[in-house]
């Protein structure tokens, strides 16, 4: 069945997925050392919603629970959800744009750039905070953006960029920066643990500040990308075909590269390198709803969020009180799930 025929059903499935996401968020906020019930957690969250909040009866909820739900768990849950959305949307975009099923959000070397930036900040001993964000985060962001600029300029021929050149220069610059990180670790052995923990990816340092910054970047960015869904469909047929269908391929490519890079750079610099989400969420969705980006992008966004929230909940609760880096969890649980999906859909997969 084509996208047009499924459109109606998709709408309901998307609403259903959003309801599932809401449930997952609330359930996740109840899980932890402090045992808070589903209803109490819901009451605490709603009590902070303007207007409606005053109607909520907050009798019998411990004051400390407010703090735990609102200031410890919720920012972390929301940050994971945002990162899940951002990485999945960009992964899905890059797979079509580069016509490469192995493309992930980090294919342009953004993760290595962010790691290099963060490593430099760690090695230099910068631990301060500027504008509510740690200096490590800012350095990671700058590293990510600089890397994309370098990769883009290497791949550029005049005003045109070919996707193959982008991938190749992304991989090359990424590998170069990875070895820079290795060297920095080698010469600064005291910082190795900190650097490794950063690159493994974690949302444990979530704050409302990070949520506040990431929310507009991810939501507006994803909306812009979704507005180009039809162009992406045409571009997955090849640049030449897309041009003949009336799409200003070079311009669209630039817009999508800028928006995607901003999303990924923001995600990586706030949480480190969380792998696999941007690769397997869009792929799994592709196996179910097909390759049309008008379906693929919204479903990848919502399920990316659900996947990340679940993974982070596991990361912080599997072996209390210690934390497993969420990047390890995403691969640990994502890979087998994806293999099962692949196996079931052997014939269907691209």
């Amino acid at each position, binding site marked *: *069945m*084509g*996208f*047009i025929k499924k*459109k109606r059903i998709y709408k309901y499935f998307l609403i259903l997925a959003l309801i599932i996401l809401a449930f997952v968020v609330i359930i996740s906020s109840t899980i932890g050392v402090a045992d808070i019930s589903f209803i109490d957690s819901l009451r605490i969250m709603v009590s902070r919603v303007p207007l409606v909040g005053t109607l909520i009866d907050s009798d019998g909820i411990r004051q400390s629970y407010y703090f735990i739900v609102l200031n410890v768990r919720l920012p972390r849950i929301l940050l994971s959800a945002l990162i899940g959305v951002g990485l999945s949307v960009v992964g899905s975009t890059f797979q*079509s744009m580069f*016509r490469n*099923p192995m493309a992930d959000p980090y294919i342009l070397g953004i993760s290595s750039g962010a790691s290099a930036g963060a490593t430099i900040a760690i090695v230099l001993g910068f631990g301060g905070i500027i504008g509510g964000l740690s200096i490590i985060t800012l350095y990671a962001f700058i590293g990510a953006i600089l890397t994309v600029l370098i990769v883009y300029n290497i791949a550029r021929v005049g005003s045109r960029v070919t996707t193959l050149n982008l991938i190749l220069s992304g991989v090359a610059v990424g590998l170069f920066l990875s070895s820079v990180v290795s060297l920095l670790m080698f010469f600064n052995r005291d910082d190795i643990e900190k650097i490794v923990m950063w690159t493994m990816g974690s949302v444990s340092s979530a704050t409302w500040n990070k949520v506040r910054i990431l929310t507009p970047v991810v939501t507006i960015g994803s909306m812009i990308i979704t*507005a*180009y869904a*039809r162009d992406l*469909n*045409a571009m*997955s*047929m*090849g*640049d*030449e*075909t897309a*041009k*003949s*269908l*009336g*799409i*200003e*391929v070079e311009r669209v490519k630039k817009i999508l590269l800028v928006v995607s890079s901003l999303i990924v750079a923001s995600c990586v610099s706030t949480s480190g390198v969380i792998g696999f989400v941007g690769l397997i969420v869009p792929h799994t969705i*592709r196996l179910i709803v*097909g*390759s*049309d980006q008008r379906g693929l992008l919204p479903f990848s966004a919502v399920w990316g969020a659900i996947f990340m929230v679940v993974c982070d909940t596991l990361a912080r609760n599997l072996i209390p009180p210690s934390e497993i880096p969420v990047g390890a969890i995403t691969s640990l649980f994502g890979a087998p799930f994806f293999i099962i999906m692949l196996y079931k859909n052997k014939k*269907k997969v*691209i």
Partner: protein
Amino acid sequence: MESRGSYPLKIQNLGWKYGDRQILKDINLTIKKGCFYSIIGPNGSGKTTLLRNIAKSLEPTPKSVFVDSIDVTKLSRRNMAKRLSVVPQNTNIEFEFTVTDIVLMGRSPYIGRFQGESSQDLEIAERAMRSTNTWHLRDKPITQISGGERQRVIVARALAQDTHIMLLDEPVSQLDIHHQIELMETIQALIKDRNITVVSVMHDLNLAAQYSDYIILMNEGKVVCQGTPHEVITEENIKRVYKLDSYIMNNPVTGKPYIMHVRKSS
């Protein structure tokens, strides 16, 4: 000056360089409405480059390619896509779209960014699929149909673009003889029914001779000769361009020239 309606496509002193290599030299063509033009010539003669210049998938120099008497470098891609459609040489599609979705992509130039396909778009797509005999494939994934079927689907997409010019790059070279004839006849019928103008790069000289109203013979980036099949497909031209000795007779059924015997020129 001719009225713009009767000459949808004009090429004036078109040259094209790739790096230092001059691929096209001083090409001049005037294409008549409602006719089938074949571009033939040996490998590397610049056929595909010429087609890509016309389609604006390469950037032609200003004032060298005119569609409806408008310089293509001044036309937006969207506007261009409403006048001219392209069936590329390689139609491999790796991502799973249904045939209907692929054909509907031909409507892209008519649909705004925040709009969906209208029922009219769906009707146009259905008509395009019916006239290319692909309607029965409409719900199949493009990755699961044969090469001949896929080629017809891409022609259907070009038709859904509702243009009056269609460019094709070796549309039948990867098909077996049955599908070759079927596709050529489909295109011929479209020219008759819709009065569209077709320019196609062709590999098979006999097929080109059989179906074309006019043939453009290229060699080393230049147009060597252009005219009706009888004017272009001659023993002298074949020898000059392909370096082959041949014997050409009239096909007793179609009355078109037919190359019978070929041997390398000594």
